[in-house]
Structures are given as C-alpha cells and as structure tokens.
C-alpha cells in the first residue's frame, strides 16, 4: 500500500472509530489522535515525495470504474432517501439525474483504463499540507469548542459522534480529490465533499440549518452534474478520462475538442468555490458550528473549487471560457469586498471576505498565465491559514462576549487579550503589507501589467477598488478590537471558558500565519516555480530583492509594535482620561453633562449601508453572475 493511499484512508478510519466511541473523553482522544496522525502523514508525504515530482500512481483495484459507479449510486440513493424523508423535490430530482448520468455515461467512460489514477505534484502537495495541518488544527479546536457549544446550546441534539466522523471523512475525501488524475475518481471525491458539507451545515437541526444545508446540497449537486457531463463529453470525444491528458490536449492540435469539457468542469469549480451567482450556499453555511465554517472556508470545500480552476488554468488561458471565468472571479471579488463593509456579524464578514478572495483566485486562474497561477497558489496558501485562524478565534470570542456582533467585540483587548492578539494577527494577514494576502495582490497587479491584453487595465482598476475597500472593513474591525474603553479594568475576565484545545489551535495557526509570510520565498523557489516550469515552460517569482524586503518587513511589523508595547507597559507614568469635551467622571467613558447628569459615551462603527448595502450588491452580483454562467454554458453548446 502506498503512502498517498494511506493518507486518503487514515482520516475516515479514525472517523469510524470516533463514530463507535460513546464516551466523550475517549472520543476526544481518538479525534485528536486522528487529527495528529493525518497531519503527520500529510507532512511525511510532502517531505518524502518532494524530490521526484510528479508522482504517478496506478490503482491496482480491478474494475475500478464499477466500484466508482457503485459508490456514486449509493450516494445518490442516500440523498434520494433523505430528500423523500424531508419532502424536498429538488434534491431528489438532482440525485436521480446524477444516478442516470452515471449509468448512461458508463457507455463512454466505462472500461477506459487510466494510465495514472493519481498524480501527485507540487499543487497537490500544497493542498495536502493545507488539509493536513490546517484541517488537523481545526479538528483539535473542535474537540474543545464542541463541548462548550453544546453546553451553550442545550436545545441542539448532541450528535458529536456523527460530527467527528463526517469532519474526518471530509479531510479524507479532500486528500483523494487533490491527488486524483482520473476524473471519474475526482468526481467521486467531489461528491463526497458535497455530501459531507451538507451533513455538517445541517448539524444544528433547526429549520434554518435544514434550509441552508439543502441549498448547499442543491447547488453543489448541480455543480456535480456539470462535472459529470464534462467527463462524459471528454471521454466521448477523446476516449480519455485523465486530467493530465486533458491539459496536454490544450496545447495540441485537438484543443477545440476540450473547450466544452473544460467549460463544464470550470462551472463545477465555480459552484464549489461559491463564486457568483452561487455564493448564497456558502453564506448560508454560516449557520453551522464554528469548526465547520473554519473547515469549509479554509482547507476544504471552497478550496476544492479553486483547486480545480487552478488545475484547469493552462487549458483556460487565452480562451473565451478562461476570460469568462476571470470575469466571474473579479465580479465576485469586488462584490464580496463591498458587501463585507456593511455587515456587523463577524462570521458574515469573514464569509464575504472568503468569497471575495476566492473570486480573486478564480480571476487569476481564468486568465491562467504562469504569473497569475503563481499568485493564485499563494492566495490559496495564505488565505487557508489566516481564515482558519480568524474563524476559530471569532468562535472563541463569541463564547466570551455572548454574541457574533462585531460591535460587541469593542475593546475585546481588555476582556480577551490573547484572543484579540490572534484576531489582530489574522486580520493583518488578510489585508496589510507585508503579509501574505497583500503581497499576493501586489504580485497580481504586477502580473496584470505584464499581461498584454485588453482586460488588464480593467482588472487593475477593479483590483484597486476592491483592495482599498478591503482595507476599510478589516481596519475598522481591528480598530474596534483595540478600542480600550477602560484602561484600568482587569484584563482577561472573559477568557474563563476558553479551552486549552482552542488556545493550542489558535496559537499554532497564529505562528503558522506569520511563518508563512517569512518562508514564502522558499515555497516559491522549491515548490511553485518548478511546478510552473513543468506546466507552462516558464516560471515566475517576485523579484528576489522585493521578496527580501517583504520578509524583513514582516519582522519589523511584528517586532516594532511589540517592543514599543513592552517599553510602554513598563512606564510608571500616569494615564490621562480620554477627551470628551466635558468633565470626565471615569472609569470608562463617562462625563458630567449639563445639570451635572452623568452621561455614558457609546461609539459605533460605520457600516455605510447606503453605499455598500449587502443585499443590493449581492443581488446585482447574482444577476450578472447568472448572465456570465449562461454564457459559459453557451460556449459548451457552440
């Protein structure tokens, strides 16, 4: 048995054990052992295989396509039964269509022997490491968080065994997905992630959770249908089912044959990555417990969507489909960033920011030049770490403050100093130089400038507006966190319920987030640049001196404020109260107003509903998105 295979099956095996263990403490041990083991396996795989990439593997299971067909029919049957029980027609229809396609498509896809079922290259390993390490840390976090979650929400039925099993299996399916080369196998894993996210989004069990989980299921099943059709079309036209064969044809004389399959696969990617017009499923997924959101947004699900788009980039570059995907991407980028300004629910802002960044990744993949693929890969890496950190820290903060409202996090620095530090690092990593996301955006701008295309000045203008708006919504949140209403208050009073599992994951991700910004030139040199050279025949990295500047600046940005803070905290000088144009009566923000009445000051952040109203922006985005999607479908028919 080879290592990649072990990597895929290890998490679900631990998941099955967790499913069987009824004792909470024992199961927690199993989950943590599973998380640690799978992370270790991912790292071992990356380290041992890094020298001879790409690694090509053939599955030795006889009649593999029958096994795949069986598994797909079983999943379709499961969804059908659920749909009947919950009286929902649409998923039933989609499951039936999926089953019919699998059966009928067998005429073209059946019996084809793939030359390599799995291909592991640098991009696979990037995803494997993200799934293993970030996913693993989220599992550890969940071990602590879910206990508190059920104490805080006694009405929700405790199904933690199913939860642990599904989360771990999700990781296994993701591993399979990112290493698959046989598209039939990839589709199988693709549908598994759909099913897993459906179960997890519906975990709360109330009407809203059920509604949103079915929305996610419906849209992603629709994406799955596009995926199926893409494979069937590809197989029918060329007699092949492998991704590398598809990409090889893009450069050859048969490029016209694969336009339609690529368009269909890209559509599947657009759905899974929650780009417009399919964004609502990811926004609805917010109802799930925090670890689920963290997993969906960082290392799984949506990352599968952009992973597929990045994989297809060499086949999309310069084509109509590629441009259309990049339009969908840039639309999503700007709409997500704008909408995030107007929201005050922390998870909503995080979700919209994810949507925005996925849009940017899709933009890069759609244009698909080697420079922009470099950017897309780094966006995937930095976003996964920072967003996982932000989601789990917000989860912990919301237990302390009793609310997900960003306003209630005002002055969190006093109540939860450690969690605030994690949040500040996470937020910084999302928008400000010299941290990863910003460095990637910068590289994207330079790449667009080198792109000799009519679209580039437009893309740059969109990037400029989106990126400025990103600064607005992250900074105002960060400002609120650091807004100290009463400097004399005792610190850390709200951190009582924080478990050590949560702290461990949050601290680890904080360190990883900063470390990634320091070691990224090495990642570029030893992983991404060789990959680009293999795939595009050209390679790209930021100018070495620029990379050095950013790395040195990371050090400065961390060290300067930290050092100054240490000096400042040693100071014995007194503090003066904040200015309130009245007699200050502190502690806290109070003053004597007219007639000697004591008045309390309350400040709120701006949300600029009139300019950045979420509903308006998303509705417009969805309308344009539907139009673009229809045009992509049109290219399939032509």
């Amino acid at each position: 048995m080879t290592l990649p295979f072990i990597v895929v099956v290890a998490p679900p095996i631990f998941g099955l054990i967790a499913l069987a263990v009824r004792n909470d403490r024992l199961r927690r041990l199993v989950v943590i052992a599973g998380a640690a083991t799978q992370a270790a396996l991912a790292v071992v795989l990356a380290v041992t295989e890094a020298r001879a990439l790409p690694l090509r593997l053939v599955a030795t299971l006889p009649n593999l396509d029958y096994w795949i067909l069986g598994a797909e029919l079983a999943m379709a049957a499961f969804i059908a039964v659920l749909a009947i029980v919950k009286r929902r027609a649409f998923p039933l229809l989609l499951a039936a269509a999926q089953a019919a396609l699998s059966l009928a498509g067998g005429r073209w896809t059946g019996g084809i022997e793939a030359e390599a079922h799995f291909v592991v290259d640098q991009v696979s390993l990037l995803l494997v490491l993200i799934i293993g390490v970030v996913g693993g840390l989220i599992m550890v976090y969940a071990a602590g968080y879910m206990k508190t979650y059920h104490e805080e929400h006694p009405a929700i039925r405790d199904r933690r065994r199913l939860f642990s099993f599904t989360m771990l299996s999700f990781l296994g399916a993701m591993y399979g997905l990112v290493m698959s080369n046989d598209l039939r196998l990839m589709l199988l894993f693709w549908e598994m992630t759909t099913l897993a996210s459906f179960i997890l989004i519906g975990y709360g069990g109330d009407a809203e959770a059920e509604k949103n989980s079915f929305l996610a299921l419906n849209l992603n099943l629709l994406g799955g249908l596009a995926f199926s059709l893409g494979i069937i079309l590809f197989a029918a036209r060329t007699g092949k089912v492998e991704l590398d064969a598809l990409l090889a044809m893009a450069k050859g004389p048969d490029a016209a044959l694969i336009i339609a399959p690529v368009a269909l696969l890209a559509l599947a990617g657009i759905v899974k990555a929650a780009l417009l017009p399919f964004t609502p499923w990811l926004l609805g997924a917010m109802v799930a417990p925090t670890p689920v959101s963290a997993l969906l947004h960082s290392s799984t699900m949506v990352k599968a969507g952009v992973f597929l788009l990045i994989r297809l980039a060499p086949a999309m570059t310069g084509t109509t489909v590629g441009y259309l995907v990049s339009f969908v991407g840039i639309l999503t980028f700007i709409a997500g960033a704008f909408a995030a300004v107007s929201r005050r629910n922390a998870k909503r802002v995080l979700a919209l920011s994810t949507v925005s960044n996925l849009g940017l990744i899709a933009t890069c993949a759609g244009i698909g030049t080697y420079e922009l693929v470099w950017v897309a890969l780094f966006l995937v890496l930095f976003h996964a770490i920072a967003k996982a950190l932000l989601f789990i820290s917000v989860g912990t903060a919301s237990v302390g403050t009793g609310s997900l409202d960003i306003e209630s996090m005002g002055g969190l620095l006093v109540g939860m100093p450690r969690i605030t530090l994690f949040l500040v690092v996470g937020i910084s990593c999302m928008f400000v130089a010299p941290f990863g996301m910003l460095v990637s955006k910068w590289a994207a701008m330079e790449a667009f400038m080198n792109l000799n295309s009519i679209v580039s000045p437009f893309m740059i203008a969109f990037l400029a507006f989106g990126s400025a708006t990103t600064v607005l919504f992250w900074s105002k949140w960060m400002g609120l966190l650091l807004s100290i209403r009463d400097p004399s208050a005792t610190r850390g009073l709200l951190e009582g319920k924080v478990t050590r599992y949560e702290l461990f994951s949050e601290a680890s991700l904080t360190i990883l987030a900063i470390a990634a910004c320091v070691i990224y030139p090495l990642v570029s040199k030893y992983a991404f640049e060789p990959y680009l050279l293999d795939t595009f025949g050209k390679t790209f990295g930021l100018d070495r001196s620029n990379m050095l500047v950013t790395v040195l600046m990371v050090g400065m940005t961390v060290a300067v404020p930290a050092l100054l803070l240490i000096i400042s905290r040693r100071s014995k000088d007194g503090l003066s109260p904040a200015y309130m144009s009245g007699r200050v009566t502190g502690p806290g923000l109070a003053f004597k107003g007219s007639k000697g009445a004591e008045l309390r000051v309350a400040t709120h952040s701006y949300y600029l509903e009139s300019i950045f109203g979420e509903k308006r922006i998303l509705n417009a985005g969805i309308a344009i998105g539907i139009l673009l999607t229809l045009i992509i479908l049109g290219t399939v028919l032509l």
Partner: protein
Amino acid sequence: MKGIEIYAAIAYVVLGPLLGGLLDGLDRVITARLQGRVGPPLLQPFYDLRKLLTRRIAPVNRLQMPLIASHLVFALLTGVLFFYGSDILLIVFVLTLASVFLVLAAYSTGSPYSTIGAERELLLMTAYEPMVIIALVGLYGVAKSFNFYAILGSKMPAYLYLPGIYLGIVYVLEMKLRKSPFDISTSHHAHQELVMGLTADMGGPALAMVELAHWYESVYLFALVLLFFSSSWISAILGLAFTYLLIILLDNATARVRWELALSFAWIATLVAGAGNLIPFYLISRGTP
C-alpha cells in the same frame, strides 16, 4: 548606481523633516497672505514641534504611544524604501500600513472624537487608495519601471500622457495633506466639529511624532508628483511649484465636505480621471512596442 540610492535614503532620513517642515511653514505663510494676514514666520512649524516635545502629557492608555511611534517608524520606512529605489507599488502598501497604525492609535483611546476621526481617516484611505494605485500603474506604463530613479531617468513628460491621473493625484494630495475640502478626519485647526478628530487625544510628544511623520510623508508625496514632470529641470520646478500652489489655493477656496461626498467624489474622480485616462493610454501604448 546603488551608492547614490543609499545616500538619497540617508539624506531623506536626515533632511526629510527639514524639507517637510519648510513646506509646511511656507504653506502657512502663503495661506496667510491669501487671507490678507501677516501670518507666522516661515520657521513656525519647527518652533511648534520643539514646544510639543517639551510638554509632558500622559497618554490615554499603554497602547496609544506604541501605535503612534509605529506610525512614525513606518512612515519613515515608506520614504526610505522610496528613495532607496524599491518597487513603488509595494511602497504604497507600506504607506497604508503606516496609516493603519495611526488610525489604530486613535481607535485605541475609545474616545468619541478620536473614534470618529479614525473612521473618517479610514474612509479617506478607501477614497484615495485606488487613485494612487492607478497612478503608479500609469507611471509604469510610461516608464516601464516601478523604480523611482528609473521613472525619473526616463525623462518622459508623464503629465502629457497622464493628465487625468495627474489631476487625480492632486485630489489625493488634498486628502493626504489634510487639506480642505477633505480635512474631515483631522485638520491643523482645532475649530472643526470633531475638535481635532484623529488627533484629539494626542498631545505633547505624541502629537510631535504625528507631525514629524506628516512631514516625512509630504516629502515623498511631492517626490511622487515630481515623477509626472521629470522631462526637464524646468518642467520639474514649474510642475512642483504649480502643484504646491494649486493645493494651497484649493485648501483656501473650498469648504469642508461631508464624508459621503468625500468618498463618492473621490471614487468618481478615480473612475473618470484615473481609469478614464489609464485605459485609453494602455490601449494606445499597447499598439506601439
């Protein structure tokens, strides 16, 4: 070549405040003349700074001073990188980092005036950043480089190719230099509705640091303007003087706008004058290799 750049960066660190302070002093003298006053002496900003440094004013909390000092450090770093010849697009983002530190310092006080000032400063940043990026991309299009000296050395009359973008940059300078009509987050005068807004809770050495950072900033902002007029010595001197006087004139001739207007005006200006200039320029220059 690298030798000159190091000296330029060192000169900036040492002479930047002198030049920035003088620009500020001259501004006050001209403004006074425009308003028919005698006005302060040219060196008044330096006297003000010295006085601020001698004051002992307690901070509002232990986080405020570190954040203000970080603002100064990164404002300085922005200019150093600029004159050292680093990528100017990267430098815009470092500039944002420096501004974020100042905004956070104001937020940290929790005071209503500082908080509203901080929020308005963020809105201004949102308003001007797209224009700055578009301007740099335009300059790159003219000179095919992101290096200050390379653009300067290209001797291209960028103002002829990028007139809309140049006007956009004047707009940005009004905001960055806290000039009317965009002095909504703070101003040099304490008579606005927010008291001093962003800097309401900063006194003594804290305010001195903010002022110093401001001087450093204004030097490389004008160096950025220089890039539009680098075709000859005469155009450089005339272009800089014209821009400087235009900004002072606008400051005196306009009334403060509301934040909604500041944001939407700036974005419309960016779209019309900025993108409206960049896109045709790009399309035309694409044809000529």
